[in-house]
């Protein structure tokens, strides 16, 4: 269904009335209207996953918290994004994410340009309350151009969705269950030996942490480009690379 020319669904977010398109989610309409809802796995240009749970919001008359990224708007929906409870939940969620992996900012390629690190500052996480899990994970440096360090992976699946939906290769996927889940290339072989990888690097561009990085980057040198995917998909949708004369 094509979008109407103008947003026509009234929604109230934190007391402000905003207009949403019928296909908007709470996160997308909030973003367009400059209302900041912290999020990690959500990425413009690919499908919704709703796995990190950082974007949880309170929707009036629903009895549980909803992830803003996966909640469709409805007429006169009333959403609260910043209550004390929500802030506490987000803080603990982020602490659990930090405790689950081995996030050592001081020796990370993404130090200083990391979405996880920035979220910690934004949410006021200055220490982690749950016990650190210190999982034993092995770095995969088999690819000639890129490295994958699962110690820094938060399983947001941005790379999985981007590789599958935008590049069309579906190299990445998640294996295992619960806190034993891990990212695999193809059928679980080293990334460098995964025949479906096209070396396009979009997975590296969208990684929110230092898990996927260019080879040869030292501490703090990695710069990701998560907006690349929205740029590519919207350009495709708009036919920006087609010859206008022959369209």
């Amino acid at each position, binding site marked *: 269904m094509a979008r109407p020319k103008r947003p026509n669904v009234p929604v109230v977010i934190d007391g402000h009335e905003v207009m949403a398109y019928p296909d908007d989610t709470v996160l997308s309409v909030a973003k367009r209207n400059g209302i900041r809802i912290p999020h990690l796995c959500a990425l413009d240009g690919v499908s919704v996953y709703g796995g990190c749970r950082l974007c949880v919001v309170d929707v009036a008359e629903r009895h549980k918290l909803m992830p803003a990224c996966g909640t469709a708007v409805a007429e006169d929906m009333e959403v609260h994004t910043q209550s004390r409870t929500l802030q506490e939940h987000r803080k603990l969620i982020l602490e659990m994410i930090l405790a689950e992996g081995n996030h050592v900012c*001081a020796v990370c390629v993404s130090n200083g340009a990391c979405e996880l690190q920035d979220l910690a500052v934004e949410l006021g996480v200055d220490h982690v309350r749950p016990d650190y899990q210190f999982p034993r994970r092995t770095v995969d440096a088999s690819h000639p151009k890129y490295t994958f360090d699962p110690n820094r992976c938060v399983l947001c699946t941005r790379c999985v969705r981007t590789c599958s939906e935008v590049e069309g290769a579906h190299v990445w996927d998640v294996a295992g269950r619960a806190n034993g889940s891990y990212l695999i290339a193809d059928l679980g072989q080293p990334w460098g030996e995964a025949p479906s990888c096209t070396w396009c690097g979009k997975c590296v561009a969208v990684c929110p942490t230092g898990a996927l990085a260019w080879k040869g980057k030292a501490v703090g040198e990695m710069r990701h480009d998560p907006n690349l995917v929205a740029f590519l998909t919207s350009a495709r949708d708009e036919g920006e690379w087609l010859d206008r004369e022959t369209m």
Partner: protein
Amino acid sequence: MRRTNSAPSRPRIATIWLGGCSGCHMSFVDLDEWLFELRRHADIVYGPLVDRKDFPEDVDAVLVEGSVTNTDNLELAHQLRARSKVVISFGDCAVTGNVTALRNLVGEPGEMVYRVYAEHPDRDGQMPSEVIPDLLPQALPLHHVVPVDLFLPGCPPPAPRIRDALTSLLGIDDTPHGIRFG
């Protein structure tokens, strides 16, 4: 921060170096001439920069660098907690375990010590056996061992961030600078 007992006295600040690289103390020294300002407001009663053997009683605030990684650290952690009003985790090793906790990924400390000493090409397979304290099973953030009042992340926390913490604790007028890990 005022001490309540007897005559009005100056705040007593300590710093201590547990399982860390001393980088946080280097950053502390990086406060440069502001250390003189600090000295005007408080006494620095203990730390690697102070000639004193035992952790003193009645400390108002202590900056703790490093994770709790061996039996010595563990004893000191309990001692400093008992003797200080405000305990500050000073830098990423104290706050998160950071680089010192990377050894937790190698497994039991025995395995790690073997890897570092016995397998090291320049050490002739010698294992350390005397004087040094036993390693704990895991290097831990300070707040997983004793209650901590304030957290000062950073590897190391830049001098302006240390200054922020101390100025707000001591009630000195100054401009704040912000926080982050790493």
